[in-house]
């Protein structure tokens, strides 16, 4: 049964992938090829689109693949299955962490993980930037892109009241004419 197959596949991806949506891409690809749900290039389109549509990338990919395979019910089953393991793990861990409130070993782990997590976030921004630069057709486009990046930076520093989402939507509208 296709729904059960979707549910089991996305439960597995949700349970065994660390580092968020972008880190899930190789695992998605393996499962999709194994089940023969779509071609690799079709999936790559989905990855690109998932980065541009609202919502977590992992959820977008799951919804898209589920919808492609089995319509609306498939989309719902895939999304719920992908989210379930992380909800259960966090529920279990949150209780544990609250109990360990001021344990020096816990603080030591958080000290290390915090710095590493910052590196991951910076790297994610760098990845999106370098991927987008690689997609540009010319140097002029790259320069325009960098100017856009600088403007967004200036907005965040001097006008932090402007919502990040507004900056993205405004950039998209400007982008229609700019690129």
């Amino acid at each position, binding site marked *: 049964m296709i729904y059960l197959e979707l549910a089991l596949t996305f439960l597995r991806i949700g349970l065994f992938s660390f580092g968020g949506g972008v880190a899930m891409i190789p695992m998605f690809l393996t499962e999709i090829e194994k089940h023969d749900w779509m071609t690799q290039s079709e999936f790559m389109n989905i990855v690109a689109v998932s980065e541009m549509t609202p919502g977590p*990338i992992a959820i977008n990919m799951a919804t898209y693949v589920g919808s492609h395979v089995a319509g609306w019910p498939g989309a719902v089953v895939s999304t719920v299955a992908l*989210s379930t393991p992380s909800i259960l793990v966090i529920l279990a861990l949150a209780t544990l962490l609250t109990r360990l409130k*001021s344990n020096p070993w816990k603080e030591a782990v958080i*000290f290390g993980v915090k710095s590493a997590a*910052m590196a991951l976030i*910076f790297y994610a921004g760098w990845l999106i930037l370098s991927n987008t630069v690689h997609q540009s057709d010319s140097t002029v486009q790259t320069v325009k892109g960098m100017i856009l990046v600088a403007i967004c*930076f200036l907005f965040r520093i001097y006008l932090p009241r402007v919502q990040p989402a507004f900056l993205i939507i405004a950039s998209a509208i400007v982008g229609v004419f700019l690129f």
Partner: protein
Amino acid sequence: MLVKLFLTFFRLGLLTIGGGYAMLAQLEQELITHHEWLTRDEFLEITAIAQITPGPIAINAATFVGMRMAGTAGSLVASFAVVLPPLIIVGFLAGHLAQWVDDPALHGAFIASRYAAAALILHASIRMLRQGVTSNLGRLLFLAGLATLMFTSLHPLFVIVAGAGTGLLLNMMHCLPGGSSRT
């Protein structure tokens, strides 16, 4: 509180472009500056936990924040709320998206929104680094992690685990610069 949680995470799910990391930037603004639901240290703890646990970072963060604010019911409401907008939007668009990506008129919009998303993530990470990592030891760990991600093909999970291991090792050698509040 449940209604507030639902509305906040529904909005985050609706307006976040660029995935979980981009959502963290907006989550920071919503939870610390706007609602004052969390302190900066609690937020950084959630960021770290969201990344060392399996699953989408956005779901992990929503579950954790919901749990802190309103227990198990809160965690379910927040997770459901953050998933709902993309599920509806992507579900409806699924048939059309592939052709839109190739549409030359919309191509620029996609490119520009990716540049903007990258800028927002980089800015958020620099600001969090300045506010959250104040010891040289912490900065050194950040640089080591970044170099590992950029110049090796090691799994991101490795960087997180190595960070945790280094923290434990430094604690054993008694050379940590105080508790997590002073990192």
